[in-house]
């Protein structure tokens, strides 16, 4: 543990001295540092940054690479910003960070630059995730949301439409498994390990039953209300060990996707990236046999997806906020988002890109993702979200791990914890 702290410190020192030397000459172009993690297609991003540097000869953007894992990246960036590190100008933010970065005074308030008219051109979910206390702190780059993948060939064989309710999914699944006589086939595959992904999955069940975790207006936990409790009980009684294998209690995205592409599950919940993997005939047994749409809901309620994705933020201690904004504007323009959608296969946050003819031709599935993206909701907006998430992970995992867990008792404890954490988050020393 201490080794990590020490290496972060050393890294920070190395980075800051390195940048300091770079900036000593006045006639050189202004250097903007962009902190991000290594993307899956580094070449595509490099092309974009080179294009920006060509078009803006007075600014040079330099990329600093942080760890790929969101948690590790967060540990490093929060240490640096906490120490008012001026050597970072623009940073990539995970969708759950803006409230924390805003509250801590690390992210620059972009309200005057990123005007309401401009914001309207973006999807609603990512904009609300970047808004805290009525001000906006980030510009969405690309988004993710929980999507519902299904075996279109099997549904067609048994004359089913993609299920709109969870109970329809269960009954369709039962019919198909019985008729296929395949004991290795499961109804559902998703992520139920005790980690961040568990919160995303469980929130989708709770939201699609009209429930929620807590109300950020009043600061009251709403987890103990019937819709949330029913949803959690449903997952324990009908999903774990029934529709989904009990092994799903240790599944993250790759393991659950593996089950699906081996042809061992009929329905699957995952992020947009999974589409390309399941349709690649080299590793997938179900390439071309997959349909996609919004997740099912409980009867009488509407579908909901957990929002994921990444945004650009500007360091409040940056010495060049103007140039930093120029870079962010370039990176989130229609043209750039189109380029990224086609070449890096990421989902754009601007509505207009979905209707672009080139995008529709090269990435036809993106339009099928849009209904789920429109319904995507951010996780609880709070500067103490990482703490709330740990409490929720503990509660969800303990609730669904066995057949006779005491959900009611745990729901009370967890609600109390969440309210306490919320109070802590809204405490500000004047």
């Amino acid at each position, binding site marked *: *543990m201490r080794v990590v702290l020490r290496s972060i410190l050393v890294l920070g020192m190395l980075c800051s001295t390195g940048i300091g030397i770079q900036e000593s000459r006045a006639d050189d172009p202004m250097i903007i540092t962009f902190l991000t993690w290594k993307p899956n297609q580094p070449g595509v991003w490099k092309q974009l940054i080179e294009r920006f540097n060509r078009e803006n000869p007075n600014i040079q953007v330099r990329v600093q690479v942080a760890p790929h894992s969101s948690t590790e990246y967060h540990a490093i960036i929060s240490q640096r910003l906490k120490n008012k590190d001026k050597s970072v100008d623009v940073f990539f933010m995970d969708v759950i960070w803006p409230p924390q970065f805003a509250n801590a005074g690390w992210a620059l308030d972009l309200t005057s630059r990123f005007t309401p008219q401009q914001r309207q051109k973006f999807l609603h979910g990512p904009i609300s995730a970047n808004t805290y206390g009525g001000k906006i702190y980030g510009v969405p780059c690309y988004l993710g949301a929980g999507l519902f993948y299904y075996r279109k060939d099997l549904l067609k064989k048994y004359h089913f439409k993609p299920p709109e309710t969870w109970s329809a999914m269960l009954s369709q699944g039962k019919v198909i498994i019985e008729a296929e006589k395949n004991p290795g086939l499961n109804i559902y595959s998703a992520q139920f390990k005790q980690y961040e992904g568990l919160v995303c999955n469980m929130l989708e069940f709770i939201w699609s039953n009209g429930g929620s975790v807590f109300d950020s207006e009043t600061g009251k936990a709403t987890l103990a209300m019937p819709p949330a409790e029913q949803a959690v009980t449903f997952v324990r009684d009908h999903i774990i060990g029934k529709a989904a294998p009990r092994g799903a209690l240790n599944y993250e995205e790759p393991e659950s996707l593996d089950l699906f592409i081996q042809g061992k599950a009929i329905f699957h919940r995952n992020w947009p990236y999974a589409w390309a993997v399941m349709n690649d005939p080299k590793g997938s047994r179900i390439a071309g046999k997959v349909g996609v749409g919004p997740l099912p809901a409980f009867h009488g309620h509407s579908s909901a997806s957990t929002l994921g994705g990444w945004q650009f933020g500007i360091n409040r201690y940056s010495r060049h906020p103007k140039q930093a904004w120029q870079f962010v504007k370039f990176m989130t323009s229609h043209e750039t988002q189109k380029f990224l959608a086609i070449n890096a296969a990421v989902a754009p946050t601007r509505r207009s890109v979905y209707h672009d003819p080139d995008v529709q031709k090269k990435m036809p599935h993106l339009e099928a993702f849009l209904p789920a993206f429109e319904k995507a909701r951010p996780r609880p907006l709070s500067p103490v979200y990482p703490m709330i998430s740990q409490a929720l992970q*503990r509660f969800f995992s303990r609730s669904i*791990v066995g057949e006779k867990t005491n959900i009611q008792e745990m729901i009370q404890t967890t609600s109390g914890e969440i309210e306490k954490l919320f109070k802590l988050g809204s405490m500000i020393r004047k």
Partner: protein
Amino acid sequence: MIRKDQTFHFFLLAPLLIILFLFIGLPICQSFFLSFHRDIVGLPNLGNAFVGWVNYSNLLHDPVARHSLLITGVFVGITTFFELLLGLFFALLMHHRFPGRGALRACVLIPWAIPTVVSAQMWRFLFNDAYGMVNYALFGADTTKYIPWLSLPATALLSIVTADIWKTSSFAALLILAGLQVIPEDLYQAARVDGASRWSRFQHITWPLIRPAMLVALLFRTIDAFRVFDLAFVMTQGGPADATNVLQLYGYKKMFVEGWMGYGSAISVCIFIIVLFLAVVYVQMVGRRLLEARV
């Protein structure tokens, strides 16, 4: 003259002392310092006020921490017991003269030489619920009987226990083997002349003489097992339902995931004190045994 020598010796030692202080002394002091403050990474506006014993009293009343301590205790108990048992077995085997002994000694050390993160990843695949070799070995092709080892609280803990025993039994074996090799051969010859059986030779010569080595192995294994982190981090992330949420992992999550620097430090300080206590107790015991052995 002697005085001059001492200063000279001190100068020779200085670089080492400085490094030890910088990389061991300072971080420990910093952990102690942090554990008396409320320092939350995500909430810098709260400042880092001195809060006295608050973090420690919260820790005392934290049911998750108590559960973690219990889990860690169970892990330490089971792993050290089996590692010493298997270690003794391997050491006796390696001590025996037979063709290919050198190769066997090298083989036994392989698990210990593999970085824990790598072997943890390997065990994660072995215990996989759908294609793991453990299931295949037990149930063959009958996939309906496959057990999701890492998904049930009891078997998840058992899995990381198994991985740890596999990995570090050879370390215990090495320490015990060192103890075996200093036993003079003439003791056995004398016993054989007196007509002592194989068992009584073990009972009256080998066992009493390797006890100090066993204690050293026990000391190292207990302390090391107490600090288990990487196995749980890679194989289960502490789940399901906190069943493998060992103390170190809990401290790591509090500190680096949630950002409670003070509270996380209080957890590491507690681990430090427990380990220090164990070390002092064991070293006292080992020291006495060694003296007795010499007399």
